[in-house]
Protein backbone atom coordinates (compact mmCIF):
# COMPACT_ATOMS: atom_id res chain seq x y z
CA UNK A 1 0.00 0.00 0.00
CA UNK A 2 1.24 3.45 -0.84
CA UNK A 3 0.56 4.76 2.58
CA UNK A 4 2.70 2.06 4.15
CA UNK A 5 5.55 2.72 1.77
CA UNK A 6 5.27 6.43 2.36
CA UNK A 7 5.21 5.90 6.08
CA UNK A 8 8.18 3.59 6.01
CA UNK A 9 10.05 6.21 4.00
CA UNK A 10 9.37 8.81 6.62
CA UNK A 11 10.52 6.38 9.27
CA UNK A 12 13.71 5.67 7.38
CA UNK A 13 14.46 9.34 6.93
CA UNK A 14 13.84 10.03 10.55
CA UNK A 15 16.61 7.65 11.50
CA UNK A 16 19.33 9.67 9.87
CA UNK A 17 19.53 12.24 12.67
CA UNK A 18 19.80 9.39 15.18
CA UNK A 19 23.22 8.63 13.83
CA UNK A 20 24.32 12.04 12.72
CA UNK A 21 23.11 14.15 15.62
CA UNK A 22 21.62 12.07 18.40
CA UNK A 23 24.37 9.52 18.88
CA UNK A 24 27.34 11.92 18.87
CA UNK A 25 25.53 14.23 21.27
CA UNK A 26 24.69 11.43 23.68
CA UNK A 27 28.24 10.15 23.55
CA UNK A 28 29.60 13.63 24.08
CA UNK A 29 27.42 14.35 27.08
CA UNK A 30 28.19 10.96 28.60
CA UNK A 31 31.93 11.40 28.20
CA UNK A 32 31.97 14.91 29.60
CA UNK A 33 29.82 14.17 32.58
CA UNK A 34 31.76 11.02 33.43
CA UNK A 35 34.99 13.01 33.43
CA UNK A 36 33.50 15.63 35.71
CA UNK A 37 32.14 12.89 37.93
CA UNK A 38 35.48 11.08 37.92
CA UNK A 39 37.61 14.03 38.96
CA UNK A 40 35.22 15.33 41.57
CA UNK A 41 34.27 11.84 42.70
CA UNK A 42 37.91 10.90 43.20
CA UNK A 43 38.50 14.00 45.31
CA UNK A 44 35.39 13.33 47.38
CA UNK A 45 36.19 9.64 47.79
CA UNK A 46 39.73 10.38 48.91
CA UNK A 47 38.60 13.04 51.32
CA UNK A 48 36.14 10.64 52.86
CA UNK A 49 38.88 8.12 53.52
CA UNK A 50 41.84 10.33 54.39
CA UNK A 51 40.45 13.74 55.12
CA UNK A 52 39.74 15.45 58.37
CA UNK A 53 36.34 15.31 60.00
CA UNK A 54 34.76 18.58 58.82
CA UNK A 55 35.74 17.76 55.25
CA UNK A 56 34.36 14.28 55.60
CA UNK A 57 31.04 15.65 56.79
CA UNK A 58 30.96 18.05 53.87
CA UNK A 59 31.43 15.15 51.49
CA UNK A 60 28.65 13.16 53.10
CA UNK A 61 26.31 16.12 52.83
CA UNK A 62 27.19 16.58 49.19
CA UNK A 63 26.41 12.94 48.58
CA UNK A 64 23.06 13.07 50.37
CA UNK A 65 21.97 15.98 48.24
CA UNK A 66 23.19 14.76 44.89
CA UNK A 67 22.06 11.20 45.42
CA UNK A 68 18.67 12.24 46.72
CA UNK A 69 17.57 14.71 44.07
CA UNK A 70 16.28 13.13 40.87
CA UNK A 71 18.40 13.72 37.77
CA UNK A 72 15.59 15.50 35.98
CA UNK A 73 15.08 17.99 38.79
CA UNK A 74 18.82 18.66 38.89
CA UNK A 75 18.86 19.31 35.15
CA UNK A 76 15.94 21.70 35.44
CA UNK A 77 17.66 23.55 38.28
CA UNK A 78 20.75 24.20 36.22
CA UNK A 79 18.88 25.16 33.08
CA UNK A 80 15.65 26.87 34.11
CA UNK A 81 16.51 27.60 37.70
CA UNK A 82 19.78 29.38 37.11
CA UNK A 83 18.44 31.21 34.08
CA UNK A 84 15.29 32.64 35.57
CA UNK A 85 16.30 33.13 39.18
CA UNK A 86 19.94 34.12 38.83
CA UNK A 87 19.98 35.21 35.20
CA UNK A 88 22.83 32.82 34.53
CA UNK A 89 22.00 31.39 31.12
CA UNK A 90 23.67 28.04 30.84
CA UNK A 91 23.44 26.33 27.45
CA UNK A 92 21.27 23.23 27.56
CA UNK A 93 24.10 20.79 26.98
CA UNK A 94 26.22 22.36 29.69
CA UNK A 95 23.32 22.27 32.13
CA UNK A 96 22.86 18.59 31.48
CA UNK A 97 26.57 17.84 31.82
CA UNK A 98 26.83 19.81 35.06
CA UNK A 99 23.70 18.39 36.61
CA UNK A 100 24.41 14.77 35.71
CA UNK A 101 28.13 15.14 36.28
CA UNK A 102 27.76 16.45 39.82
CA UNK A 103 25.31 13.66 40.51
CA UNK A 104 27.67 11.06 39.10
CA UNK A 105 30.44 12.46 41.30
CA UNK A 106 28.37 11.55 44.34
CA UNK A 107 28.04 7.95 43.16
CA UNK A 108 31.62 7.67 41.99
CA UNK A 109 32.91 8.92 45.31
CA UNK A 110 31.24 5.91 46.89
CA UNK A 111 32.84 3.62 44.36
CA UNK A 112 36.30 5.00 45.02
CA UNK A 113 35.84 5.01 48.75
CA UNK A 114 34.79 1.38 48.64
CA UNK A 115 37.72 0.44 46.44
CA UNK A 116 40.25 2.17 48.67
CA UNK A 117 38.83 0.52 51.76
CA UNK A 118 38.83 -2.87 50.08
CA UNK A 119 42.60 -2.90 49.72
CA UNK A 120 43.94 -4.93 52.67
CA UNK A 121 45.46 -2.63 55.33
CA UNK A 122 48.57 -4.82 55.45
CA UNK A 123 49.55 -3.43 52.07
CA UNK A 124 49.91 0.09 53.42
CA UNK A 125 51.75 -1.19 56.49
CA UNK A 126 54.29 -3.02 54.38
CA UNK A 127 54.82 0.01 52.20
CA UNK A 128 55.34 2.30 55.19
CA UNK A 129 57.65 -0.26 56.80
CA UNK A 130 59.89 0.03 53.78
CA UNK A 131 60.22 3.72 54.44
CA UNK A 132 57.73 5.06 51.93
CA UNK A 133 55.97 8.27 52.84
CA UNK A 134 52.21 8.07 53.13
CA UNK A 135 51.85 9.73 49.74
CA UNK A 136 54.21 7.34 48.02
CA UNK A 137 52.59 4.35 49.65
CA UNK A 138 49.18 5.50 48.43
CA UNK A 139 50.47 6.21 44.95
CA UNK A 140 52.50 3.10 44.29
CA UNK A 141 50.85 0.45 46.41
CA UNK A 142 47.30 1.38 47.31
CA UNK A 143 46.03 3.12 44.19
CA UNK A 144 47.07 0.48 41.62
CA UNK A 145 45.07 -2.07 43.58
CA UNK A 146 42.11 0.20 44.34
CA UNK A 147 41.90 1.11 40.67
CA UNK A 148 41.40 -2.50 39.64
CA UNK A 149 38.81 -3.04 42.34
CA UNK A 150 36.87 0.00 41.15
CA UNK A 151 36.36 -1.14 37.57
CA UNK A 152 33.28 -3.40 37.96
CA UNK A 153 31.20 -0.91 39.96
CA UNK A 154 32.35 1.87 37.68
CA UNK A 155 31.06 -0.14 34.77
CA UNK A 156 27.65 -0.11 36.46
CA UNK A 157 27.88 3.65 36.91
CA UNK A 158 28.64 4.06 33.22
CA UNK A 159 25.51 2.12 32.29
CA UNK A 160 23.38 4.21 34.63
CA UNK A 161 24.78 7.45 33.33
CA UNK A 162 24.25 6.62 29.65
CA UNK A 163 20.59 6.06 30.39
CA UNK A 164 20.26 9.21 32.48
CA UNK A 165 21.33 11.35 29.53
CA UNK A 166 17.88 10.67 28.13
CA UNK A 167 16.47 13.10 30.69
CA UNK A 168 18.27 15.90 28.90
CA UNK A 169 15.68 15.84 26.16
CA UNK A 170 13.40 17.68 28.57
CA UNK A 171 15.43 20.83 28.08
CA UNK A 172 15.88 20.35 24.38
CA UNK A 173 19.34 18.86 24.19
CA UNK A 174 19.58 17.24 20.75
CA UNK A 175 20.57 13.81 22.03
CA UNK A 176 19.15 10.43 21.04
CA UNK A 177 15.83 10.54 22.83
CA UNK A 178 15.13 14.03 21.56
CA UNK A 179 15.76 12.82 18.03
CA UNK A 180 13.22 10.12 18.66
CA UNK A 181 10.71 12.67 19.90
CA UNK A 182 11.25 14.73 16.76
CA UNK A 183 10.92 11.66 14.60
CA UNK A 184 7.74 10.82 16.45
CA UNK A 185 6.28 14.21 15.60
CA UNK A 186 7.20 13.88 11.96
CA UNK A 187 5.86 10.41 11.67
CA UNK A 188 2.59 11.25 13.39
CA UNK A 189 1.81 13.60 10.57
CA UNK A 190 1.41 10.66 8.24
CA UNK A 191 -2.32 9.92 8.25
CA UNK A 192 -3.73 6.66 9.58
CA UNK A 193 -0.63 4.57 9.89
CA UNK A 194 1.71 7.22 11.22
CA UNK A 195 0.88 6.56 14.82
CA UNK A 196 1.76 2.91 14.42
CA UNK A 197 5.29 3.80 13.52
CA UNK A 198 5.91 5.42 16.85
CA UNK A 199 6.57 2.15 18.62
CA UNK A 200 9.19 1.02 16.10
CA UNK A 201 10.93 4.37 16.51
CA UNK A 202 11.25 3.85 20.22
CA UNK A 203 12.30 0.25 19.80
CA UNK A 204 15.08 1.39 17.52
CA UNK A 205 15.96 4.08 20.02
CA UNK A 206 16.18 1.37 22.63
CA UNK A 207 18.61 -0.54 20.43
CA UNK A 208 20.89 2.45 20.32
CA UNK A 209 21.03 2.61 24.08
CA UNK A 210 21.54 -1.13 24.35
CA UNK A 211 24.45 -0.82 21.96
CA UNK A 212 25.92 1.99 24.02
CA UNK A 213 25.53 0.15 27.31
CA UNK A 214 26.81 -3.17 26.05
CA UNK A 215 29.55 -1.61 23.98
CA UNK A 216 30.81 0.42 26.89
CA UNK A 217 30.62 -2.49 29.31
CA UNK A 218 32.47 -4.69 26.83
CA UNK A 219 35.27 -2.14 26.57
CA UNK A 220 35.51 -1.82 30.33
CA UNK A 221 35.51 -5.60 30.61
CA UNK A 222 38.44 -5.66 28.23
CA UNK A 223 40.25 -3.15 30.35
CA UNK A 224 39.56 -5.24 33.41
CA UNK A 225 40.96 -8.34 31.76
CA UNK A 226 44.04 -6.53 30.51
CA UNK A 227 44.80 -5.26 33.97
CA UNK A 228 43.97 -8.47 35.74
CA UNK A 229 46.51 -9.67 38.26
CA UNK A 230 46.74 -13.47 38.32
CA UNK A 231 45.13 -14.72 41.49
CA UNK A 232 44.03 -11.30 42.71
CA UNK A 233 40.27 -11.60 42.39
CA UNK A 234 38.03 -8.60 42.30
CA UNK A 235 34.60 -8.87 43.80
CA UNK A 236 32.11 -6.44 42.39
CA UNK A 237 28.62 -5.80 43.65
CA UNK A 238 25.67 -5.75 41.28
CA UNK A 239 24.14 -2.30 41.49
CA UNK A 240 22.26 -0.18 39.00
Amino acid at each position, binding site marked *: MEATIGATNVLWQSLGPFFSRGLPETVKITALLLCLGLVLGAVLGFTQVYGRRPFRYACVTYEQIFR*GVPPLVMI*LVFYNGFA*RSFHIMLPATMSAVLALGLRSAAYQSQIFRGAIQAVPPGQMMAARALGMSKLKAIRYVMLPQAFRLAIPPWSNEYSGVVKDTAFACAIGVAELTRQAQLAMTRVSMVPDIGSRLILPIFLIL*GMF*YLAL*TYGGNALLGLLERRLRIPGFETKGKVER
Partner: protein
Amino acid sequence: MTYFEFAGTVFPRLLRATVITLELTAIGIGSGFVLGLLLALTRVYANRVLSGIANVYIQFFRGTPLVVQALAIYYGFPPYLKTLGIEPFSPLVAACIALGLNSAAYQAEYFRGAIQAISSGQMQAARSMGMSKMQAVRSVILPQALRIVLPSWSNELIYTIQYSSVAYFLTLEELTFASMKIAAKYGRAFESYATAGVIYVVIVLLVSRLLAHAESRLRIPGLCVDDRAR
Protein backbone atom coordinates in the same frame (compact mmCIF):
# COMPACT_ATOMS: atom_id res chain seq x y z
CA MET B 1 6.79 37.69 48.37
CA THR B 2 9.32 36.08 50.62
CA TYR B 3 10.25 32.52 50.09
CA PHE B 4 8.02 31.40 52.92
CA GLU B 5 5.00 33.20 51.53
CA PHE B 6 5.75 31.61 48.21
CA ALA B 7 6.11 28.20 49.76
CA GLY B 8 2.85 28.65 51.59
CA THR B 9 1.03 29.54 48.39
CA VAL B 10 2.22 26.60 46.40
CA PHE B 11 2.14 24.12 49.26
CA PRO B 12 -1.24 22.53 48.43
CA ARG B 13 -0.22 21.95 44.86
CA LEU B 14 3.12 20.48 45.87
CA LEU B 15 1.41 18.29 48.42
CA ARG B 16 -0.96 16.86 45.84
CA ALA B 17 1.95 16.29 43.52
CA THR B 18 3.95 14.58 46.26
CA VAL B 19 1.06 12.24 46.89
CA ILE B 20 1.08 11.30 43.21
CA THR B 21 4.81 10.73 43.39
CA LEU B 22 4.35 8.42 46.36
CA GLU B 23 1.54 6.59 44.57
CA LEU B 24 3.72 6.07 41.52
CA THR B 25 6.53 4.83 43.72
CA ALA B 26 4.35 2.41 45.63
CA ILE B 27 2.68 0.94 42.57
CA GLY B 28 5.94 0.87 40.67
CA ILE B 29 7.96 -0.95 43.28
CA GLY B 30 5.06 -3.13 44.33
CA SER B 31 4.31 -4.46 40.87
CA GLY B 32 8.04 -4.61 40.22
CA PHE B 33 8.39 -6.83 43.27
CA VAL B 34 5.82 -9.35 42.12
CA LEU B 35 6.97 -9.48 38.53
CA GLY B 36 10.62 -9.30 39.49
CA LEU B 37 10.36 -12.21 41.88
CA LEU B 38 8.62 -14.26 39.22
CA LEU B 39 11.31 -13.43 36.71
CA ALA B 40 14.06 -14.28 39.17
CA LEU B 41 12.51 -17.63 40.02
CA THR B 42 12.15 -18.31 36.30
CA ARG B 43 15.78 -17.46 35.72
CA VAL B 44 16.98 -19.73 38.49
CA TYR B 45 14.64 -22.69 38.43
CA ALA B 46 12.89 -22.88 35.07
CA ASN B 47 14.05 -24.57 31.88
CA ARG B 48 16.41 -23.03 29.35
CA VAL B 49 13.75 -21.51 27.10
CA LEU B 50 11.77 -19.76 29.79
CA SER B 51 14.93 -18.66 31.53
CA GLY B 52 16.17 -17.21 28.26
CA ILE B 53 12.98 -15.28 27.67
CA ALA B 54 13.14 -13.87 31.17
CA ASN B 55 16.72 -12.87 30.53
CA VAL B 56 15.86 -11.06 27.32
CA TYR B 57 13.23 -9.10 29.17
CA ILE B 58 15.65 -8.24 31.95
CA GLN B 59 18.45 -7.21 29.61
CA PHE B 60 16.13 -5.02 27.58
CA PHE B 61 14.57 -3.18 30.49
CA ARG B 62 17.88 -2.72 32.26
CA GLY B 63 19.69 -1.64 29.15
CA THR B 64 17.32 1.07 27.95
CA PRO B 65 16.45 4.32 29.70
CA LEU B 66 13.23 4.54 31.68
CA VAL B 67 12.33 7.65 29.69
CA VAL B 68 12.35 5.66 26.47
CA GLN B 69 10.25 2.92 28.02
CA ALA B 70 7.69 5.41 29.34
CA LEU B 71 7.41 7.21 26.01
CA ALA B 72 7.09 3.93 24.15
CA ILE B 73 4.32 2.75 26.44
CA TYR B 74 2.42 6.01 26.41
CA TYR B 75 2.76 6.91 22.73
CA GLY B 76 3.80 3.74 21.02
CA PHE B 77 1.38 1.10 22.19
CA PRO B 78 -2.08 2.73 22.23
CA PRO B 79 -2.41 2.84 18.39
CA TYR B 80 -2.01 -0.94 18.39
CA LEU B 81 -4.22 -1.49 21.38
CA LYS B 82 -7.01 0.45 19.74
CA THR B 83 -7.58 -2.39 17.32
CA LEU B 84 -7.92 -4.69 20.32
CA GLY B 85 -10.50 -2.35 21.76
CA ILE B 86 -8.36 -1.17 24.65
CA GLU B 87 -8.58 2.51 25.45
CA PRO B 88 -5.35 4.48 25.42
CA PHE B 89 -3.68 4.69 28.81
CA SER B 90 -4.04 7.67 31.03
CA PRO B 91 -0.69 9.23 31.90
CA LEU B 92 -0.93 7.79 35.40
CA VAL B 93 -1.53 4.26 34.16
CA ALA B 94 1.21 4.51 31.57
CA ALA B 95 3.69 5.80 34.16
CA CYS B 96 2.80 3.02 36.57
CA ILE B 97 3.23 0.40 33.87
CA ALA B 98 6.58 1.82 32.84
CA LEU B 99 7.88 2.07 36.40
CA GLY B 100 6.61 -1.39 37.23
CA LEU B 101 8.12 -3.11 34.21
CA ASN B 102 11.40 -1.29 34.68
CA SER B 103 11.67 -1.96 38.37
CA ALA B 104 10.79 -5.61 37.80
CA ALA B 105 13.90 -6.05 35.66
CA TYR B 106 16.23 -4.63 38.30
CA GLN B 107 14.56 -6.41 41.17
CA ALA B 108 14.75 -9.65 39.22
CA GLU B 109 18.52 -9.37 39.12
CA TYR B 110 18.76 -8.59 42.83
CA PHE B 111 16.54 -11.52 43.73
CA ARG B 112 18.44 -13.82 41.43
CA GLY B 113 21.71 -12.85 43.06
CA ALA B 114 20.28 -13.40 46.51
CA ILE B 115 18.76 -16.78 45.66
CA GLN B 116 21.95 -18.00 44.07
CA ALA B 117 23.97 -16.82 47.01
CA ILE B 118 22.22 -19.23 49.29
CA SER B 119 24.20 -22.40 49.65
CA SER B 120 22.92 -25.34 47.63
CA GLY B 121 22.98 -27.36 50.80
CA GLN B 122 19.85 -25.59 51.94
CA MET B 123 17.87 -26.85 48.96
CA GLN B 124 19.36 -30.32 49.32
CA ALA B 125 18.34 -30.49 52.96
CA ALA B 126 14.81 -29.41 52.15
CA ARG B 127 14.39 -31.86 49.29
CA SER B 128 15.76 -34.76 51.31
CA MET B 129 13.03 -34.09 53.82
CA GLY B 130 10.53 -34.75 51.07
CA MET B 131 9.61 -31.18 50.17
CA SER B 132 8.77 -30.42 46.58
CA LYS B 133 10.87 -27.84 44.79
CA MET B 134 8.18 -25.22 45.23
CA GLN B 135 7.77 -25.93 48.92
CA ALA B 136 11.48 -25.72 49.42
CA VAL B 137 11.64 -22.41 47.60
CA ARG B 138 8.78 -21.00 49.59
CA SER B 139 9.79 -22.16 53.05
CA VAL B 140 13.55 -22.34 52.95
CA ILE B 141 15.06 -20.35 50.11
CA LEU B 142 12.88 -17.26 49.92
CA PRO B 143 12.86 -16.36 53.62
CA GLN B 144 16.64 -16.26 53.48
CA ALA B 145 16.86 -14.64 50.05
CA LEU B 146 14.53 -11.82 50.96
CA ARG B 147 16.70 -10.88 53.90
CA ILE B 148 19.85 -10.98 51.83
CA VAL B 149 18.28 -8.81 49.18
CA LEU B 150 17.21 -6.03 51.54
CA PRO B 151 20.17 -3.70 50.99
CA SER B 152 19.83 -3.89 47.20
CA TRP B 153 16.09 -3.58 47.46
CA SER B 154 16.44 -0.46 49.55
CA ASN B 155 18.57 0.96 46.78
CA GLU B 156 15.88 0.12 44.27
CA LEU B 157 13.20 1.82 46.33
CA ILE B 158 15.24 4.99 46.47
CA TYR B 159 15.76 4.88 42.73
CA THR B 160 12.03 4.43 42.15
CA ILE B 161 11.24 7.44 44.30
CA GLN B 162 13.54 9.57 42.19
CA TYR B 163 12.72 8.08 38.82
CA SER B 164 9.01 8.52 39.32
CA SER B 165 9.90 11.89 37.86
CA VAL B 166 9.80 10.21 34.47
CA ALA B 167 6.07 10.90 34.58
CA TYR B 168 7.09 14.47 33.75
CA PHE B 169 7.39 13.36 30.14
CA LEU B 170 3.83 12.11 30.20
CA THR B 171 2.63 15.45 31.57
CA LEU B 172 1.48 13.84 34.76
CA GLU B 173 1.59 16.24 37.65
CA GLU B 174 3.90 14.49 40.02
CA LEU B 175 6.42 16.48 42.03
CA THR B 176 8.86 17.34 39.24
CA PHE B 177 6.22 18.36 36.74
CA ALA B 178 4.44 20.38 39.41
CA SER B 179 7.60 22.23 40.27
CA MET B 180 8.08 23.05 36.60
CA LYS B 181 4.55 24.37 36.34
CA ILE B 182 4.99 26.42 39.48
CA ALA B 183 8.25 27.81 38.17
CA ALA B 184 6.55 28.82 34.96
CA LYS B 185 3.65 30.44 36.79
CA TYR B 186 5.47 32.37 39.49
CA GLY B 187 8.81 32.90 37.81
CA ARG B 188 10.66 31.66 40.90
CA ALA B 189 12.30 28.82 39.10
CA PHE B 190 15.22 28.03 41.39
CA GLU B 191 13.17 28.11 44.57
CA SER B 192 10.53 25.97 43.01
CA TYR B 193 12.93 23.25 41.89
CA ALA B 194 14.98 23.51 45.04
CA THR B 195 11.88 22.96 47.14
CA ALA B 196 10.97 19.92 45.10
CA GLY B 197 14.55 18.71 45.48
CA VAL B 198 14.40 19.12 49.24
CA ILE B 199 11.14 17.18 49.39
CA TYR B 200 12.73 14.34 47.43
CA VAL B 201 15.79 14.30 49.66
CA VAL B 202 13.66 14.27 52.80
CA ILE B 203 11.57 11.39 51.49
CA VAL B 204 14.71 9.48 50.54
CA LEU B 205 16.29 10.03 53.96
CA LEU B 206 13.15 8.98 55.80
CA VAL B 207 12.77 5.88 53.69
CA SER B 208 16.45 5.00 54.20
CA ARG B 209 16.06 5.25 57.94
CA LEU B 210 12.94 3.10 57.91
CA LEU B 211 14.60 0.46 55.79
CA ALA B 212 17.72 0.40 57.95
CA HIS B 213 15.48 -0.15 60.93
CA ALA B 214 13.63 -2.93 59.14
CA GLU B 215 16.92 -4.54 58.22
CA SER B 216 18.09 -4.70 61.79
CA ARG B 217 14.75 -6.05 63.00
CA LEU B 218 14.72 -8.79 60.39
CA ARG B 219 18.31 -9.83 60.82
CA ILE B 220 18.95 -13.47 61.59
CA PRO B 221 22.17 -14.08 63.50
CA GLY B 222 24.55 -16.09 61.45
CA LEU B 223 22.67 -15.78 58.19
CA CYS B 224 25.48 -14.93 55.89
CA VAL B 225 26.07 -15.29 52.23
CA ASP B 226 27.85 -18.47 51.17
CA ASP B 227 30.05 -17.44 48.29
CA ARG B 228 30.76 -20.98 47.27
CA ALA B 229 27.22 -21.48 46.09
CA ARG B 230 27.87 -19.20 43.17
